[in-house]
């Protein structure tokens, strides 16, 4: 249906200067002093300019790409992209060899330069990352792809810069799948929507004829599992994003919900509700074998695997109230891990394996928080009137979730929006969406 993930990049020149650089960023603590970085517009020659206008209806794809990079670095909270008006050196000259004194003068510590050409319907981009203080090149890379892919080039450059300067993988060449919402609270129309991590390239995957909830990517980000009320039968579905093929998961005589993929992508784990009791089941996508994982007269839901497939965290009210539990993936060794005041829900295992993010409800407020997998070290990152359902960035450094506002007695003033926050508790910001939005799920890194 929609071809998104089939674009391959040809990286034909890869070089990272291994010399000790003077700049590095610590992302394990709240960064209140973001690194001043200059993103020089990527240089484009006159011929490419003509082709850029013809192919992309863009005057200067070079400066568009650098804007994508700049925006990514800024929203990460770790970088402070400097105003282009202060730049002294022309983009083409700087790309060959920057005059480091000029860039030091405007307090830049790092500099990104580059060059784009569009020829024979191919977009070629090369960029360099410079350490201003040490006065040397840190990295140089070049890509060739189709011109329409220019935003992704910007995201990949951002990831490379992030990785070089923080020592960890980036999360910019990623997508968010979520539920788009429109209409009054009592008759919301919901559609599956997918967009780039920075809010661009939104596409709607369902038409809004039936209620859809809780979409989640598989590890390769090509499949999505979600809940659909198709024909008024709430069931877990599987959607192939590229082909648009949909199928119901398993043959359950009742509601299935709260689906997620196992980290190896081979199974879907979900809840099945029968006679007022919800338990956790898995279905193997290859041989269609269904396995019951929990068997308890309480509500067991919101299951999420550990990245090594060995454990499952889930939500249960078996103690009388919603709490978070961890068990082995065969359902044995069930242990409650949340013991703080209030109710706990939507546990989701970090891709790094060491933390579980959750929603907490206490005294009429909702919190997004994290705890270690044994329940220790609980840390609440953000408090609000209503927010829930965190999803991890692929590098485990950022959480995306949705937040609803309070409506007045007439139901006015209601909105649902996506927000993100760093694991450090800093850098909370709204994620732009075309419509109201909820239930976000973050893809893996697409260009891995």
């Amino acid at each position: 249906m929609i071809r998104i993930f089939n674009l391959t990049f040809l990286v034909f020149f890869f070089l990272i200067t291994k010399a000790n650089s003077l700049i590095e960023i610590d992302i394990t603590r709240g960064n209140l002093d973001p690194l001043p970085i200059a993103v020089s517009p990527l240089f484009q020659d006159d011929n490419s300019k003509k082709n850029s206008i013809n192919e992309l209806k863009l005057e200067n794809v070079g400066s568009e790409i650098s804007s994508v990079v700049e925006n990514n670095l800024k929203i990460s909270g770790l970088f402070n992209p400097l105003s282009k008006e202060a730049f002294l050196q022309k983009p083409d000259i700087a790309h060959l060899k920057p005059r480091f004194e000029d860039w030091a003068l405007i307090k830049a510590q790092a500099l990104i330069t580059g060059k784009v050409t569009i020829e024979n319907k191919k977009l070629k981009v090369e960029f360099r990352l410079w350490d201003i203080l040490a006065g040397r090149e840190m990295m140089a890379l070049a890509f060739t792809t189709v011109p329409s892919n220019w935003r992704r080039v910007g995201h990949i450059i951002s990831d490379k810069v992030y990785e070089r300067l923080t020592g960890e993988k980036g999360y910019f060449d990623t997508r968010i799948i979520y539920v788009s919402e429109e209409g009054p609270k009592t008759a919301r129309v919901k559609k599956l929507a997918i967009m780039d991590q920075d809010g661009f390239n939104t596409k709607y995957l369902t038409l809004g004829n039936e209620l859809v909830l809780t979409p989640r990517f598989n590890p390769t980000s090509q499949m999505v599992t979600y809940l659909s009320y198709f024909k008024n039968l709430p069931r877990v579905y599987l959607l192939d994003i590229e082909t648009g093929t949909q199928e119901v998961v398993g043959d359950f005589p009742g509601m299935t919900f709260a689906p997620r993929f196992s980290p190896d992508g081979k199974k879907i784990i979900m809840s099945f509700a029968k006679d007022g009791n919800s338990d956790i089941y898995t279905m193997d996508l290859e041989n269609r074998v269904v396995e019951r994982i929990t068997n308890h007269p309480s509500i067991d839901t919101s299951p999420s695997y550990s990245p090594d497939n060995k454990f499952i965290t889930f939500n249960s009210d078996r103690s009388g109230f919603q709490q978070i539990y961890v068990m082995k993936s065969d359902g044995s060794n069930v242990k409650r891990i949340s013991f703080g005041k209030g109710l706990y829900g939507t546990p989701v295992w970090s891709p790094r394996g060491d933390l579980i993010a959750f929603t907490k409800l206490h005294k009429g407020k909702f919190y997004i928080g994290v705890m270690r997998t044994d329940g220790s070290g609980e840390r609440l990152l953000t408090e609000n009137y209503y927010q829930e359902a965190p999803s991890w960035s692929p590098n485990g450094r950022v959480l995306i979730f949705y937040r609803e506002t309070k409506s007045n007695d007439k139901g006015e003033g209601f909105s649902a929006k996506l927000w993100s926050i760093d694991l450090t508790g800093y850098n909370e910001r709204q994620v732009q969406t075309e419509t109201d939005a909820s239930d976000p799920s973050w893809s893996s890194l697409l260009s891995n």
Partner: protein
Amino acid sequence: MNFKKSFRNTFLVILLSLIVSACATKKTTTTVEGQMQGDVYTGTDTVKYLADGVPDRVFFATNESILTTKSRDTLRKQANWLRENSSINVVVEGHADERGTREYNLALGERRANAAKDYLITYGISADRISVISYGKERPVDSGSNPLSWSKNRRSVTVKAN
């Protein structure tokens, strides 16, 4: 499992009668101009009728699926009506308020719908005439963000299926 469940139900009945007797001696707390008892909605604002004198819905306390005395009274009326109209099948829709996580609320709605269904079965209605569906918090009747609105939304609604 079955033993466990019936044990749990017996326990709930005992607990319920304790609560009821406690209320009888304590004096009932009534709020918002007599429209709520504790946090269970007791008004008639949103209530529709399956037939004359047969309300279509019952209301629940926060995070609960226990049927109140009034709910059981309503469901007995529904059961009588269903007995008199044996050709009619129903869907029991379970709902939750907006103050909970989406996935848990789906399960809670299903639990509430089944609490109503089980009671109808107890009063002689065949299980195959009753199906259930949970909407969780997806279909509120009242769009306000206040305790009274939420109490109207914590409900199960019996709807004609044919």
